[in-house]
């Protein structure tokens, strides 16, 4: 019996799992506050004050909160989502070969870098 080549799946699976935790633990709270409660006026008017949020995310403690938000709220969930998209394509018999993988994890990587870049811009401006 020939030995199969080692899959690189552990990398994507680890990112997927970490993202899954974020999706389950952090994202519900984020949506609830940012995308539901505030727009519906259930939070104080100044809850999302521009200066305050900037300070939290880009200034206090070297912008650590911002980095956490970008990592746990964006990068990891993106990898989580694109991992499922990648496997979903297989499930739906959309055989994109190696390109499907490049497309999925490539886009997740690109958007993650972009998010980190925005945070970096905010950080340097503050």
């Amino acid at each position, binding site marked *: 019996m020939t030995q199969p080549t*080692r899959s690189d799946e*552990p*990398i994507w699976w680890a990112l997927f799992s970490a993202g899954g935790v974020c999706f389950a633990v952090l994202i519900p709270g984020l949506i609830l506050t940012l995308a539901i409660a505030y727009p519906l006026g259930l939070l104080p008017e100044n809850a999302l004050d521009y200066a305050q949020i900037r300070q939290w995310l880009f200034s206090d403690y070297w912008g650590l909160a911002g980095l956490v938000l970008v990592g746990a709220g964006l990068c990891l969930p993106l990898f989580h989502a694109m991992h499922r998209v990648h496997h979903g394509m*297989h499930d739906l018999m959309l055989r994109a070969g190696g390109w499907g993988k490049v497309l999925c994890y490539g886009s997740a990587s690109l958007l993650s870098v972009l998010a980190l870049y925005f945070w970096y811009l905010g950080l340097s401006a503050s």
Partner: protein
Amino acid sequence: MQKTLVIQRYNPEQDHKPHPQHFTVPCDDSTSVLDALLYIQQQLDPTLAFRWSCRMAICGSCGVMVNGIPKLGCKTFLRDYKDDITVEALAHFATEKDLISDMSVFLTHLQAVKPYLINHDTRPQPHQQTPKQLAKYAKFSNCINCGLCYSACPQFGLNPAFLGPAALTLAQRYNLDSRDQGKAQRMPQLNGKNGVWGCTFVGFCSDVCPKQLDPAAAVNQGKVASAADFVIGIFKP
């Protein structure tokens, strides 16, 4: 009481694909699908082909699809079905005749993971193993090789090279055994794309498992092991 079984018949010497045939069988509260099939074979049509032996859910021979769900014929009772009951050969395997599937791919996958104790100590004494150590793998050692989990697994259906729930569970069973030293030999099979990574945790395998041994859990525990092995692989030359 009587019930109608709609059986997907297939004779490779005549047919191009399976076709349904209706049989009416007498039944009571204790009649299993296997009992019904035996009645048909003995009383109505001796050419009906299916596998069976122990009729007590331990030999694993009589797996069939009952109303589209993989079941052991001997542990599925007519009393639990209101209308006609469709019986067909296990999904995802090739059908050789009537309700008989070609299980050779299953056997090949099983053998691929080296499902036996690998231990280099040759002293002729029993190993020590505490009940706690035994409990770690005991559940996964209860697989009767019926193949229902493969019929429940769309990933196996989509890719027959996927080692599948039973084989991966068996690998995990030996990997978790405190007496075993063969994990390193088994990991290469698990690490491949047709090993644990072929699984997307659909989880239906665990639902249909007649012995409730949760193969999905075993496979996904295998992912953790494989991921750890991956990391170790980076640091080892």
